[in-house]
């Protein structure tokens, strides 16, 4: 059972998370407004945080990957904060654009 978990199930989960990112990537690339892109970016970053932990489980090195996942979660806030400040400042000129 252990073998199945590590060898088949976890890579399957990784594959699934990568495929789920396509939905968010669609929003980032084609989202009608800038805010949709920001939303998609946030979704992708959460998926990558989860993906890091799953990759760590696959390699049996979760202790190494989990620190980076923590760092990501914090960085995500900084980036989103900067983008949101920018869009609040001069958002209306660009939100109609594609």
């Amino acid at each position, binding site marked *: 059972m252990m073998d199945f978990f590590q060898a088949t199930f976890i890579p399957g989960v990784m594959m699934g998370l990568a495929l789920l990112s396509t939905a968010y990537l669609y929003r980032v690339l084609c989202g009608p407004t800038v805010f949709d892109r920001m939303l998609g970016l946030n979704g992708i970053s959460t998926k990558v945080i989860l993906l890091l932990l799953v990759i760590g489980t696959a390699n049996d090195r979760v202790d190494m990957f989990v620190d980076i996942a923590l*760092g990501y979660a914090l*960085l995500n806030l900084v980036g989103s904060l900067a983008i949101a400040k920018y869009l609040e400042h001069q958002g209306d000129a660009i939100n109609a654009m594609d």
Partner: protein
Amino acid sequence: MMEFFEIALLILLITTAVGISRVRNLISAVLVLACYSFLMAAVWAQLGAVDVAFVEAVVGAGLATVLFLLTLFRARAQDTQIRRARTPLVALLGLPLLGFLLLYAAVDLPPYPDGRDGQDLGKASTRVAAEYLQKSYQKTETPNVVTAVLMDYRAFDTLIETGVIFTAGIACALLLRDRAK
């Protein structure tokens, strides 16, 4: 299954890279670039280069995004639109050719070392890597091997890199300084 995962990640990366060249305004380009950094960090983590993944996340997704946005704060709204010329024929033909040549050269690279089992170590990592891993603590008394390599074995390189980054930081600070004062 692992190969499919890597292929899926690479396809996502390529899609993002194509997307950057298609967007119409700079703020969207910044967002797509941050997305590219996140995916790239996942690729690094999958390859086992966790340190590189972390730097990619910090610099690519965090710092670069904030710096780009600081720059955009200074620009007027109509300046953030991108007007694209039509793709020149040279680029359309030359870039695929260049990519093909790079792929052709990649065949001759030493095999990717699968260090997880410690067995199939490729040429690139047989000569010095083992010595670093075994003896770096005795020689430098630094617990982390990556830090030992960066700060002891190639200290001058790192020093000059730091100088370059410092200069770039000063240049950014000068450019982004508040003009009103």
